[in-house]
């Protein structure tokens, strides 16, 4: 038993299993392609949230804004550009990514000076305000949302296409973030988390660092928004694009469940949470959202250190 917890899986072994699931999964389990695609989306959510929440100590409830901007940018471009499906999708993703980064820079310059719980509640307000504005704005379909163009390929091809796209996005996001955390910039993020004032005093230019980190999160969230909107085929302002009470909270929850501020924590949290959530949807029909609320409370209150934190504790105990 002790040896089990002392055993340390090689990063490359985990990566190989994940890569196998990502590459072969859609073919081996075509019926689950949509679920697997959502899984990669969740991984992107957790990783991008963790950059601020876990590494930098800025707990944002408003990252969903960038996802929503990506959704709407792709939908509007694909509606109005008048080009083929894939050209429209590519252009939409590009515009969505740019707008999301722009929004992160603007909001970041205004809000990243706010600290602690003021930042958390402020970003929560940001996410909901964005959803309400989208729900009242006729140009983007107001409360009835927007439908996206149909995927031109054969039936069943669509899921596989988006499954691979989102897998690629999640993989790039993970590898890029992994590299970033190993650089000086990653250390600067941790310094801001551990003691903001000391980081300032040491001469770190904290404001640009914070804005850059948020913009990087926003980049991936914006692209994932465009892809997810096309995969779902329809965006509702409050339930898909700016879904603060579902996607917006899940981001936080997955990172915490896995263990925030760790490399594999967000990925692990996304896996565990997504599976749990799918089970809720299957077996607790009608009460799944109630169960999710309960799950949030239970995880936060009883398990705030996350799976990685728990494993580290066990390992430390097994070794001592």
């Amino acid at each position, binding site marked *: 038993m002790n040896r089990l917890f002392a055993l340390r899986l090689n990063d490359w072994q985990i990566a190989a299993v994940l890569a196998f699931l990502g590459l072969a999964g859609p073919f081996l389990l075509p019926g689950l392609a949509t679920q697997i695609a959502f899984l990669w989306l969740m991984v992107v959510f957790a990783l991008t949230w963790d950059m601020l929440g876990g590494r930098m100590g800025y*707990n944002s*409830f408003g990252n969903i804004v960038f996802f929503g901007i990506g959704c709407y940018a792709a939908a509007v471009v694909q509606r109005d550009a008048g080009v083929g499906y894939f050209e429209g999708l590519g252009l939409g993703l590009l515009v969505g990514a740019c707008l999301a980064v722009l929004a992160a820079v603007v909001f970041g310059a*205004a*809000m990243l*000076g*706010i600290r*602690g*719980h*003021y930042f*958390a*509640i*402020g970003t*929560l*307000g*940001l996410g*909901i*305000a964005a959803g*309400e*504005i989208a*729900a*009242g704005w006729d140009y983007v379909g*107001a*409360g009835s949302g927007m439908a996206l163009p149909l995927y031109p390929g054969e039936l069943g091809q669509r899921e596989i296409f988006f499954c691979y796209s989102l897998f690629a996005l999640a993989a790039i996001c993970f590898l890029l973030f992994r590299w970033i955390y190993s650089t000086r910039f990653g250390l600067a993020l941790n310094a801001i988390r551990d003691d903001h004032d000391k980081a300032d005093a040491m001469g770190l230019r904290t404001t640009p660092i914070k804005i850059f980190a948020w913009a990087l999160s926003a980049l991936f969230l914006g692209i994932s928004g465009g892809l997810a909107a096309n995969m779902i085929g329809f965006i509702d302002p409050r339930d898909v694009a700016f879904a603060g*009470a579902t996607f917006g*909270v899940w981001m*936080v929850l997955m990172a*915490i469940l896995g263990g925030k501020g760790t490399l594999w924590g967000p990925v692990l949290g996304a896996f565990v949470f997504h599976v749990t959530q799918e089970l809720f949807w299957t077996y607790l029909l*009608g*009460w799944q*959202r*109630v169960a*999710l*609320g*309960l*799950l*949030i*409370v239970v995880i*936060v*209150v*009883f398990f*705030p250190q996350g799976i990685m934190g728990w494993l580290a504790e066990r390992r430390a105990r097994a070794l001592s």
Partner: protein
Amino acid sequence: MLDNLSLFFQYPSLAADVIVNGLLIGAIFALAAYGMALVWGVLNIVNVVQGELVVLGGYVTFLAVQAGLPPLLGFPLSAAVMFCVGWFIYRAIIFRVVDKDIFISILATFGLSILFQQLANAVFGSDVRTVDAGLGSLHLFDGTVTLSYVKLLAFLLALGAGLTLWLFLRHARLGQAIRATAQNPRAARILGIDTNRVYAMTYALNGALCGAAGSLAVMAWTIHPYIGLPYTVRSFMVVVVAGVGNVAGVVAAGLGLGALENVAGFVFGVEFQIAFVFGLMVVILVWRNAMAARKRSYLE
């Protein structure tokens, strides 16, 4: 939008109608905000579930009226039921996060907020509910300014409840214990105050305040399961503007917010009123931060 704005200035009685109605609703916000300030000051927790407690209080009155009770009896009943609910929430969840990192308590109460919101949706349905108190309306200035008596009553009851609690905190033994704990929990413990009980009472009192606010909200306005978070954010905003220990400030900021929100709803359209509430909070936080930064740069 500009049409509405010019309409607003052309007809002063219309403007008066919008502003006065907003002020009356604002008393409900002030009541909920007072509860939030209490919990924030004593437990050092930003209670994100605040709005859901308001909504639940509204449903208690709604159910009481459905059962045939007179609507005004719903007011004390909601406060009493929500007092117990608050006590229970503290005993079940809040006491576990009270001395933890403030982000943990925000996330835990946010989870509770989602839980109650979905529970209300599953049990009561997503319909918009209201209770007719059957009191009629007061018409002023040839009927251009309409004040329903129930809003006036709600205004007075809200202020009365706030005043009662303020007196309680000033003069009652338990109220003094609550204030002592807010100032210095460790010293309060040394002097023999059971701080855990004080925390539970504070949270329960907050529940009662929210229940009272919710009861007034369902009589003077409407409730539905998803309206909780706006009440949380309004309370938060009011407390941020007024400060945690400032009762008069909380009342003034609550009334002001009610008036401002009603005017914004009139000018931008009702569909943007919630967006206005949340946007205003972001603006207030950014502005507050900018002011603090200015102060810091003076010091340098």
